[in-house]
């Protein structure tokens, strides 16, 4: 049993925290929604130089990390900074899939900072991984893939996309899902800003692809998608934890300095006790993230149990942190130009990707009963 970080991870954490504290500004965060790519290309290049994409990938696959706690360290810091990057989508999600396909050539591009997006969810699929209507048909010259993908993060920045499509089975079947590598220019996009920064796109695919676009054996993709999403959920929850820590710092500062009725509002016991409850839930969220990151390589039932447990707890804690911090700040907490606003929106959005707290509560029950 050991809860300290390794020396390497502590160094990564320190240098990343220092770099982000020095480099990330509200203007650069705002730029992620204005820039066509949906992120700050200069910052992304420098984060790539720091080795962030590589830290998401195991040594066996050409990276130098890839463990659950590598995800935790990096994403907690990105969360603290409130910075949208394509790291989760490209290196964790697409990278996680690529690592299973043996396509180390593509993975090397991801490690170098090129962006590959994963286009999977569709309008109406909500959080159900197997609900895919996009179809792929084998043709003489390869594959024809057609369908609509919803809220594809990192798509505006992507040079290529991994697109899931059904090569067999009915719309919610577990079997019959396949993955295809689709070049950027083979899809059409409507891109738009996101609530917590960055951009995503609705992606329309209607393309003929070469035979080698198929990334793993036909019809077998669901298990790999689930594994990649488990890692992405760990990263996302670690990012949420960092967001909570940043919001905690802002709120504690505000309670110490803002005066009402002649004293700092942090002197008011009702707020003190509520803040104590917030702090407790943030510690709980940290433990939940540790639990999930520590079980990335566990067998499916145990790993997915932790996925749902952690996503549920983080979702609940996030809502408490957002609502209490805004309430304690009063009006200023609702303004766009004060740092809390962006962090709070970004933290709120965690519940709208990879399944919300209730979805995972029911899934936790179902996994236990199975």
């Amino acid at each position, binding site marked *: 049993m050991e809860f300290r970080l390794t020396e390497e991870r502590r160094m990564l954490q320190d240098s990343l925290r220092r770099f982000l504290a020095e480099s990330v500004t509200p203007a650069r965060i705002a730029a992620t929604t204005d820039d066509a790519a949906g992120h700050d290309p200069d910052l992304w290049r420098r984060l790539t130089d720091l080795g962030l994409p590589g830290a998401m990938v195991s040594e066996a696959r050409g990276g130098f990390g890839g463990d659950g706690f590598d995800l935790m360290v990096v994403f907690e810091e990105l969360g603290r900074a409130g910075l949208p990057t394509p790291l989760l989508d490209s290196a964790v999600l697409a990278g996680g899939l690529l690592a299973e396909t043996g396509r180390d050539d593509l993975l090397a591009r991801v490690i170098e900072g090129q962006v590959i997006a994963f286009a999977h969810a569709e309008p109406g699929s909500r959080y159900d991984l197997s609900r895919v209507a996009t179809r792929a048909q084998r043709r003489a010259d390869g594959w024809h893939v057609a369908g609509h993908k919803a809220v594809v993060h990192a798509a505006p920045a992507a040079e290529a996309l991994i697109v899931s499509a059904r090569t067999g089975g009915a719309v919610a079947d577990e079997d019959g899902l396949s993955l295809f590598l689709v070049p950027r220019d083979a899809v059409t996009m409507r891109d738009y*800003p996101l609530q917590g920064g960055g951009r995503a796109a609705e992606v329309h695919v209607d393309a003929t692809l070469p035979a080698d676009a198929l990334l793993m054996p036909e019809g077998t993709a669901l298990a790999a998608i689930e594994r990649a999403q488990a890692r992405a959920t760990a990263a996302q929850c670690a990012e949420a934890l960092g967001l909570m820590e940043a919001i905690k710092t802002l709120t504690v500062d505000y309670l110490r300095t803002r005066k009402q*009725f002649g004293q700092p509002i942090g002197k008011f016991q009702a707020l003190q006790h509520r803040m104590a409850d917030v702090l407790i839930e943030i510690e709980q969220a940290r433990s939940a993230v540790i639990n999930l990151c520590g079980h990335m390589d566990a067998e499916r039932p145990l790993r997915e149990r932790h996925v749902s447990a952690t996503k549920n707890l983080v979702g609940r804690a996030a809502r408490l942190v957002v609502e209490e911090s805004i309430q304690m700040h009063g009006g200023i907490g*609702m303004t766009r130009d004060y740092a809390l606003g962006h962090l709070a929106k970004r933290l709120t*959005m965690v519940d709208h*990707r990879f399944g919300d707290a209730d979805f995972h509560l029911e899934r936790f029950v179902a996994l236990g009963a199975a």
Partner: protein
Amino acid sequence: MDLTYTKAQIAFRDELRGFLADKLPQALSEKVARGLRLTKSDYETWHAILNARGWLGVTWPREHGGTGWDAVQRHIFEEEVTAAHAPRIVPFGVNMLGPVLMKFGSDAQKALYLPRILNGDDWWCQGYSEPGAGSDLASLRTEAVRDGDHYVVNGQKTWTTLGQYANRIFCLVRTSKEGKPQQGISFLLIDMDTPGVEVRPIVLLDGEAEVNEVWFQDVRVPVENLVGPENAGWTCAKYLLTHERTNIAGIGFARAGLAALKRIASAEMQGGRPLIENPLFAAKVAQVEIDLMAMATTNLRTVAAAAEGQAPGPESSMLKVKGTILRQQINALARQAVGPYAQPFVSEALEAGANLDPVGPDYALPATQAYFNNRKLSIYGGSNEVQRQIISKTILEL
């Protein structure tokens, strides 16, 4: 004990319904129903329609051109206009300043301003909060110094809702630093066109700029614009606060929100069936519905007591706290129901004229924005913390 309306009240309700069916423009009610942003002229149009029927001064006595309705009638009016998705009446002139002028204003002030409020000549905004004085209103610092026939005003107000549309502002200003903080405050009417007044928008979480900062630099205000005696503004402020509490529970908004939530949850599919049929989600919706059924009766009890002339007690604070929590819970459930399409943030799509297709279902963005925007409900109008303080003081008598 009788929970039903009298025949006269039912007739009144039916008359309202007929009026709304006839006169409320459909384009306007659709905008409200879909959660789109209203323009200045949207509000003005609706005010004019109500005023033409004599129903704009809902809380006003007949002698000043008001309806003369009792508390139950006002409650029925609130229920019906909300259910019909009419715009709200902009409260600053009609529901806030109007009653203060009737109680404390000079004859000249009444004669000048009251008709202009009803006929739409003036759009008033409220200058109460300051950057250093939120819930602690008495600590305000905007200063008005007498100089001959004028006050010279310097300072800054904030959270001035819809100030960008206003041509006049009513302010609490400090005219004396002696005695208790409350004692040196005056209630002053200021023309926004006066040199030295500047309005700066505050952009909120949801991208909307409906609140503002209002800055005063050496603004000269004629002394006849003082309401009531100098240094007696706190009395006006307290009186206004009790009037602001009309419809404080927001039952109508909660009902409309609940109906919208059910529509969203019926349209969204999870695991192959409508989300509303998911046992956990259905239970959460039922929970707020049950709370709302009880709160509607709590509200009616207060309304009935008011109609009999009883002074409002801590009940209005209870309704404020519970009502805002309930609306925020409904907003949170609607946001949850929306699912992944809560993420896109095409703020312009909220403008009715934007001609921009929504990303995902058309309810997604308004529901998500409402969640963020309505965090304000528990902050403004006396934060819920201040309300809890009032409740416990009244009961604990410590």
